[in-house]
């Protein structure tokens, strides 16, 4: 067991397990920075996991499939934005509504497309390829971790950098942060907070959809009912614990990814499968507790007690 924990395969698996959470955590952080909690991540991921399968099968091309899935993710983000920003629907309830529609809608759609209610095995989808990075793959140990990952995993790492630059070096990022921190201030200089939050939620939808796409086109090679299994919610916690910054979200996602990878590996042991399934959620719960407690203590200390 210990030996397999130190093997490059395990670290490789961590990165793999981190990917969907990371995409969703980045999605959550950009929404949070604009002042909105995007709990609909879960539903967007679930929808996108199915869309990924359908679109890539339809076009026979993973890249086009991914692109179409991202467009669909953007549209769901837009829908959420419309209700939250224009119709003033409570953002949590709107998200619950979207997640409900995802649970039902994916089954409905899958049944319509494949005639199966449980999984999409009958659809010939195309997954994103694994990429071997020349030279790096020769490095012992490290090469086995960093090379040979799914394309989406590399994209997720790239997304961390892109999102960091976007939020902290670009005008739109500045506006998003301003709107999230003091909406009235941003509006007073003519920034349309609504427009900015629209953009943030659409972007959030796109990022979440990439995470969803990976679930059925990388992590697995098919769609199964309810396959997001709370990853969107875990990502919410990851983003919050990472201070809603891309780099912070990345670090916490790695931790949760490690928990998932560990759970996957424990499947090979005698520990009951049901208990192993609890590991990612338990890790998130404990992590959230510790993080919140530290914040609470810090605030109390500042107040002088």
């Amino acid at each position, binding site marked *: 067991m210990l030996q397999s924990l130190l093997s490059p395969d395990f670290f490789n698996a961590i990165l793999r397990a981190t990917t969907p959470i990371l995409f969703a955590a980045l999605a959550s952080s950009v929404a949070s920075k604009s002042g909105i909690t995007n709990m609909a991540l879960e539903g967007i991921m679930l929808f996108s996991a199915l869309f990924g399968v359908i679109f890539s099968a339809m076009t026979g091309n993973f890249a086009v499939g991914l692109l179409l899935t991202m467009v669909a993710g953007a549209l769901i983000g837009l829908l959420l934005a419309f209700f939250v920003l224009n119709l*003033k629907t409570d953002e*949590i309830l709107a998200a619950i509504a979207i997640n409900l529609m995802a649970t039902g809608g994916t089954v409905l759609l899958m049944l319509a497309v494949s005639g199966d209610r449980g999984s999409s095995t009958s659809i010939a989808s195309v997954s994103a390829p694994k990429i071997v990075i020349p030279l790096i793959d020769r490095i012992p140990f490290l090469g086995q971790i960093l090379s040979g990952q799914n394309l989406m995993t590399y994209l997720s790492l790239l997304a961390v950098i892109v999102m960091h630059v976007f939020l902290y070096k670009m005008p739109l990022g500045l506006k998003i942060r301003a709107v999230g921190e003091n909406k009235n201030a941003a509006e007073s200089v003519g920034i349309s907070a609504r427009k900015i939050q629209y953009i943030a939620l659409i972007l959030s939808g796109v990022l979440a959809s990439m995470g969803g796409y990976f679930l059925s086109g990388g992590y697995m090679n098919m769609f199964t009912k309810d396959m997001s299994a709370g990853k969107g919610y875990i990502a919410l916690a990851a983003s919050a614990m990472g201070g809603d910054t891309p780099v912070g979200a990345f670090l916490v996602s790695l931790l949760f990814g490690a928990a998932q990878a560990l759970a996957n590996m424990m499947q090979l042991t005698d520990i009951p499968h049901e208990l192993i399934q609890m590991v990612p959620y338990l890790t998130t719960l404990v992590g959230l507790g510790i993080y919140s407690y530290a914040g609470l203590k810090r605030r109390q200390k500042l107040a002088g007690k």
Partner: protein
Amino acid sequence: MNSAKRFDMFRMFFSVLIALLISFVIIFFVSKEPVTAITTLITGPLKSKRNMGNVVEAMVPLIFTGTGVCIMFSANQINLATEGGFHLGGLVAAAVALKLGLPAGLSPIAAICLAALAGAIFCTIPAVMKIKTGAPELVSSLMINYLSLWLCTFILMYALQDPSVGSASYKLPAESELPTIIKGTNIHAGLLLALIVAVLGYVFLFKTRTGYELRLTGENESFARYSGINIVKVVLISQMVGGVIAGMGGGVELLSPIYSRFSWTSLLGYGWDAIIICTLAKKNPLYTPLAALFLAYLRTGASIMARYTDVTLEIVQITQGIIILLVVAEQFLSGMKHRMIAKEAKASLKEGEVA
């Protein structure tokens, strides 16, 4: 009733109507026999006594979880652990029924009480975490739902499983089953309990000291604190009471004639349904039976439709989603509302000038 309230009612009915229309449009897209499907959906539940019975049975868990959520949401505790609490309640009731061997009469009472206790403890976890660490109950409650699912499945597989059927418990003894109250249907004593819970929930929220504290905290926490209300107590009690009701609901559902074994290996979604019940009931438990009737009717209609046509049951979740989106949308039809209120204000302005 003032114009604002009248308007809210109108908007709710209008929202439900739109949601149904959109669902029908979807049915037209996915079905080869859309007209049959929609007719079955609408009229199916009325076709037989049995079907009508199904509607009423389906109301029971919805009233329970809906009332629980009304109470938690009234205190502005966005705890979504009703789902897990309900699940755990079902498991505990099954375990009590199977393992304690109590006589008829006592068995369901003990099972439901312990299910309620389990639900209470479970739903209080996010509350305790919030109080002790400041972790938001929203995220922690989402996490523990999955813990509940896998813990229950674990206990099912390792303690209650009937090896001859796979992932289900041994058959529940007849002593534990809730009696039916209307012959020819499965409508059971749990319905009465659900109605009592809804009424008690209303009395609790609107007529008791603690209920008043809950609502005050829910509307404005700093006002409640300033008034001398113990917020920690409100956070704890609201989620605990919500949990009691959720757990009780799970127990009642499992002991109803609908189930003969504990076989829940995935979350049933009653916790999420509770959100729409609470939304339609405007956080007033007294209205949860009405909201539950609506949703149960829709559900039953959909499952009949799924049986006889090519449209699946899950269409209801889409309808539900749209209803939540529209009913909670403050600005939906707000132009109309504004015109209505502006008209009233202008009229009273004129009155003032005359006087």
